[in-house]
């Protein structure tokens, strides 16, 4: 397959455009996704290609966007809805949690809501308390929803294809700071199975499970630690529901040490789930050190750029955690 380097943002757009070219039932709806191109420019150029009925620029109305997506899906359409910032999922919450997640179940297995909710998450853009959160653990708690968090341009294209092909609602978290990152991405459409982790770097001394932007921070830390003679394995679950337990458990059995890193507030974050899952598994016997969780502080994301950085794990925090963990023999 021919590849070329494109950005994460372009990969998202390409995945949608390719799908929309071959499937008339797929359409996008969201705020300012028309001529404006969406809050981050992801849909730029799409309304020109697909027209206003397939790139539906909506009123500022998150509950209606989510509800209309469900309704359209009930008629056989395959909507992709974009929320400008993942924080606004709070306004669409009833439709996602009480409706989309349960529609198939409440229709006795016969209702179908093939929809993808795409939304940018995370801090780092100076967008402050209400435009910077990472609330994925909320969605991960709801039976009936799948939750995807790609960290690279390659992953985002393949996972978005899989999400669009899925006949169940998928919450698709894009990270704002990753939009401009690049990778080699195949030109043709391809699918990455939802529920398959990726070992982003192999190692033998400690397993670091990291999500979204933290994958890159963990890789940066791993490169530095290599110089100190510490071999770090970095695992990106890529989808947190369903979670690829096997890859994580196998890795911990090999390294005997586990650190989980995410940007979301540590308390109640998905890291707790991963740590518990490992503690309950056969990997428990292999642990040489206490499991560590790194996550956001229990504060709203600050506007001040220095404090904004301090509110979430950074490379030095990962370095310190790894060094401390490998002390246990």
């Amino acid at each position, binding site marked *: 397959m021919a590849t070329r380097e494109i950005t994460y943002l372009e990969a998202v757009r390409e995945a949608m455009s390719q799908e929309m070219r071959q499937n008339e039932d797929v359409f996008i709806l969201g705020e300012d996704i028309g001529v404006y191109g969406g809050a981050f420019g992801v849909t730029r150029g799409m309304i020109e290609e697909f027209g206003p*009925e397939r790139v539906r620029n909506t009123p500022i109305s998150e509950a*209606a966007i989510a509800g*209309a997506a469900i*309704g*359209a899906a009930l008629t056989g359409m395959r909507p992709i809805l974009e929320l400008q910032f993942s924080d606004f999922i709070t306004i669409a919450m009833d439709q996602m949690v009480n409706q989309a997640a349960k529609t198939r179940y409440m229709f006795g297995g016969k209702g179908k809501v093939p929809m993808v909710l795409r939304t940018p998450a995370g801090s780092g853009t100076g967008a402050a308390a209400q435009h910077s959160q990472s609330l994925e653990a909320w969605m991960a708690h709801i039976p*009936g929803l799948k939750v995807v968090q790609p960290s690279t341009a390659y992953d985002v294209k393949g996972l978005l294809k899989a999400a669009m092909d899925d006949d*169940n609602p998928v919450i698709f978290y894009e990270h704002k700071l990753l939009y401009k990152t690049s990778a080699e991405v195949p030109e043709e459409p391809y699918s990455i199975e939802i*529920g398959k982790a990726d070992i982003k770097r192999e190692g033998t001394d400690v397993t670091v499970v990291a999500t979204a932007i933290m994958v890159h921070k963990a890789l940066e830390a791993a490169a530095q630690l290599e110089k100190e003679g510490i071999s770090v394995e970095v695992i990106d679950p890529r989808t947190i529901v369903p979670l690829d337990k096997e890859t994580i458990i196998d890795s911990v059995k090999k390294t005997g040490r586990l650190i989980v890193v995410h940007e979301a507030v540590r308390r109640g974050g998905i890291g707790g789930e991963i740590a518990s899952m490992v503690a309950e598994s056969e990997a428990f016997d292999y642990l040489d050190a206490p499991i560590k969780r790194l996550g956001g502080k229990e504060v709203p994301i600050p506007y001040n750029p220095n404090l904004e950085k301090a509110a979430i794990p950074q490379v030095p925090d990962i370095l310190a955690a790894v060094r401390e963990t490998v002390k246990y023999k």
Partner: protein
Amino acid sequence: MASKLKNAQLDAKKALETVEDQFQMLQILNEQGEVVNEAAMPDLTDEQLQELMSRMVYTRILDQRSISLNRQGRLGFYAPTAGQEASQLASQFALEKEDFILPGYRDVPQIVWHGLPLSQAFLWSRGHFQGGQIPEGVNVAIPQIIIGAQYVQTAGVALGLKKRGAKAVAITYTGDGGTSQGDFYEGINFAGAFKAPAIFIIQNNRFAISTPVAKQSAAKTLAQKAVAAGIPGVQVDGMDPLAVYVATRDARERAINGEGPTLIETMTYRYGPHTMAGDDPTRYRTADLDNEWEKKDPLVRFRKFLENKGIWSEEKENEVIEKAKEDIKEAIKVADAAPKQKVTDLISIMHEDMPFNLKEQYEIYKEKESK
């Protein structure tokens, strides 16, 4: 300064009064079953009029039987419908089979008359998963439980129908209380912005559980809420089947002609409790109010109207009643025959293809169930 302004549009109160004055209740048949609005009379054949009456009688029996089945523990969740037959059935009567209904929890009769087998409505009431398995070609959603949530979904169904080129509409129902939800406004506004072929019905039955409509909103009518969304709104006598029929028929026609959605407020009353789950309406309604509304009864006035036309009789009505009782007995039998639900059934209906995380749980329960 302000005293010098003469522009009437700057008189905010006047603007409101002007709008509110426009919302006068449409009535065709009065409480005595007399035609009071000849010009608005729909062009329905005698057979159609008889059919509508039959459905209302049938549904009144269904309501009585459902209440008693619920009391016997043979039916689960039930929201009584008596008093609202015109509002529910005459609006459904104006639809075509291709039209898609998104009901609230009290709107089971409409979806049954739209094609959902009664036995499935009973299974739904019992929380059996087979109750939600809408048969192919029956264009209805299962009744919505979250107040107002169906309104935003209706906008989406309507857009889907439009995209597919169907000459059909999406129609939804909520109550007076539902109009206080954000979803209510978001739904009508969204549908309006896209001229989606939708009909939004508010069945104003005067009480949202115990809260009277006067405490729900300062708005004089609920139909006028359409003005804020820039769509047509109409208030009709919800105890008058002909008025409800006409308003729905006209809304449908506008919708399929590309003129967008309509909001219809039907002035009605539920005689019974909110649901069978312990509500006692005497705590918040007076007997006088109940009596006042029972005088407006849709069956009584429509019966008089049809009898005057010489197309209805006690004998005919008894036939319908017997048929209803027979059907209900049969439907309960069918519902009783549904297999007992297992945890594995519930796990397997969650996803199109069972993800591996659920497969683990599935295996655990399968093992337990095999013992």
